[in-house]
């Protein structure tokens, strides 16, 4: 019951946010230097006079601004993200074609970073002030300062160029003719480096958060009670501290998932991973604004969906939340 209400509230909010982003996109197109029709068509030369004239008519660029806005937002809400003259295809098709690769990459990176981050955070908090703690905290600090794309390049250099362990390029071996299980293994091999390097920064974030949260919960009275009862430290850590310490980490993870989608632009660029991030990078060079804005909208949508899922997970972990409201 409570969860159904929450989902409805969240969906309403999500719809409003999406609407606001569509409006933002509209104003961004108008903020770009030059004629909006040319902006939408991509770099001059990509579209001929007729196309520009069609665009003008389609968006009603001769109409007052609010009519244009109404039309634009209407188009977006009916999932018409415009046409990419550069790629010669509707933007929505381009995005849908590449979305699965991005989802595989970001979700893998998300789980790797969350599981490794929590595990390391717990390990560090269990040995506060000792060598293990300093080592983990120090490494996290280093990852925290490392640019995503540079970590990716260095990983290619070491594990792909020097050691030859893993492929550093693409989504699968082109022309290998693999099918079924072999193909899955092949994709998995291609996935390891991009997912690890994308997750590195976030792993550091979750590790720091878990460590701080574990130490804070460990000070609370119910933990003292558990200790006084004579429970084993490992049981206290797992059943009493970790459960409570995870709450802020889950919240943060939900918020950070959005940054993961942004970071995918960098990772996909380095690894030639055929997702929407790579699509955005290619569109930047071609100044294909329609596609850029489409990817932007879809990545915002992914963030919204991530946040709704987090909200629900949060309520499942801690039933106390939502009771008051």
């Amino acid at each position, binding site marked *: 019951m409570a969860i159904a209400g929450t989902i409805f509230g969240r969906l309403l909010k999500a719809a409003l946010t999406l609407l606001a982003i569509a409006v933002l996109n509209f104003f961004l*197109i108008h903020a770009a230097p030059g004629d909006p029709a040319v902006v939408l068509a991509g770099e001059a030369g990509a579209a001929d006079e007729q196309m520009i004239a069609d665009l003008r008519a389609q968006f009603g660029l001769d109409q007052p601004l609010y009519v244009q806005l109404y039309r634009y937002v209407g188009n977006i809400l009916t999932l018409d993200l415009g046409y990419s003259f550069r790629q010669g295809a509707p933007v929505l098709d381009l995005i849908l074609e590449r979305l699965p690769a991005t989802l595989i990459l970001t979700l893998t990176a998300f789980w790797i970073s969350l599981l490794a981050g929590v595990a390391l955070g717990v390990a560090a908090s269990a040995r506060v002030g000792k060598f293990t703690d300093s080592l983990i905290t120090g490494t996290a600090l280093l990852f925290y*300062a490392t*640019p995503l794309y540079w970590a990716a390049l260095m990983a*290619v250099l070491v594990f792909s160029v020097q050691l030859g362990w893993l492929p550093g390029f693409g989504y699968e071996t082109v022309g290998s003719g693999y099918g079924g299980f072999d193909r899955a293994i092949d994709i998995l091999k291609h996935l390891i480096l991009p997912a690890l390097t994308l997750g590195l920064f976030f792993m550091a974030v979750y590790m720091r958060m878990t460590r701080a949260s574990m130490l*804070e919960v460990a000070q609370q009275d119910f933990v003292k009670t558990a200790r006084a009862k004579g429970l084993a430290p490992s049981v206290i850590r797992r059943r009493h501290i970790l459960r409570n310490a995870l709450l802020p980490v889950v919240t943060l993870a939900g918020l950070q998932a959005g940054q993961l989608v942004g970071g995918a*632009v960098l990772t996909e660029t380095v690894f030639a991973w055929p997702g929407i991030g790579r699509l955005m990078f290619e569109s*930047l060079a071609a100044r294909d604004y329609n596609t*850029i804005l489409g990817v932007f909208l879809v990545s915002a949508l992914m*963030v919204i969906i991530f946040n709704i899922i987090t909200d629900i997970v949060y309520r499942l972990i801690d039933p106390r939340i939502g009771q008051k409201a």
Partner: protein
Amino acid sequence: MSLWSRFATNRAAVIGLIVLIAVIIIALLAPVMFPKGPWAMVQRPFLAPFDTDGLPLGTDTLGRNVLAGLIYGARVSLLVGLVSTVMALLIGVPLGAVAGFYGGWVDEIAMRFTEFFQTIPNFALAIVLVAILEPSLTSITISIAIVSWPPVARLVRAEVMSVTRREYVDAARLAGLSNLHILTRQVLPNTVSPIIVMASLMVATAILLESSLSFLGLGDPNIMSWGYQIGAARTVIRSAWWLSFFPGVAIVLTVLALNLIGEGLNDALNPHLTRKGKS
């Protein structure tokens, strides 16, 4: 204990400060060390590092001095990091302060607005903004500020809310001081320390953002930056590792230094807060 001696007890923070000061000095001296600028072609392309006299880090794909590029790049990183953080503070602090001080519907609107910007994937928005405004130092700085202010607004709002409930603020109200006076003279000065800590970490994040944008080719075309160096060398990583390696090290060192300073400031300015996280 004075602020400095509390800061100095954190040895990592002191090292961070030394590194940052070194980077600042190098950035300032760039035109003295390399009067020809970072774009001048000085030798054959693809010279390996540590091989040629006067070119300790080798040359890039066009025969430019990698070290010169690195040192000029420090100027952009520091400048963009600093200016965009100041701009983000100029948006976030007033918004958060007004929201926290007045509460009610003002707070509601301000926080919905902030939340909206927090929902949008930060880096994707920065890319879109720079791409549409045309890449330049100004558009990059503005874009980074636009994606960085929401956490400031939230922090300031929370701080202002807690300070506004204190008794001396009631006293100021009874003394008939205006709202503006109370907010700027009595409330905001007491929220400065967490803002300073956050700002030092924001400079670090801004440097990472700037380098990521330049890496994607969204840097100012007239200015040498670390991200541009790495981006330009991306396709030749197999044959010329040093072109992307050294600028990356420069970024990591600078960002790490700023993060360490931020932690040191946090320890020094909020001593009662940090102890529970340590030992």
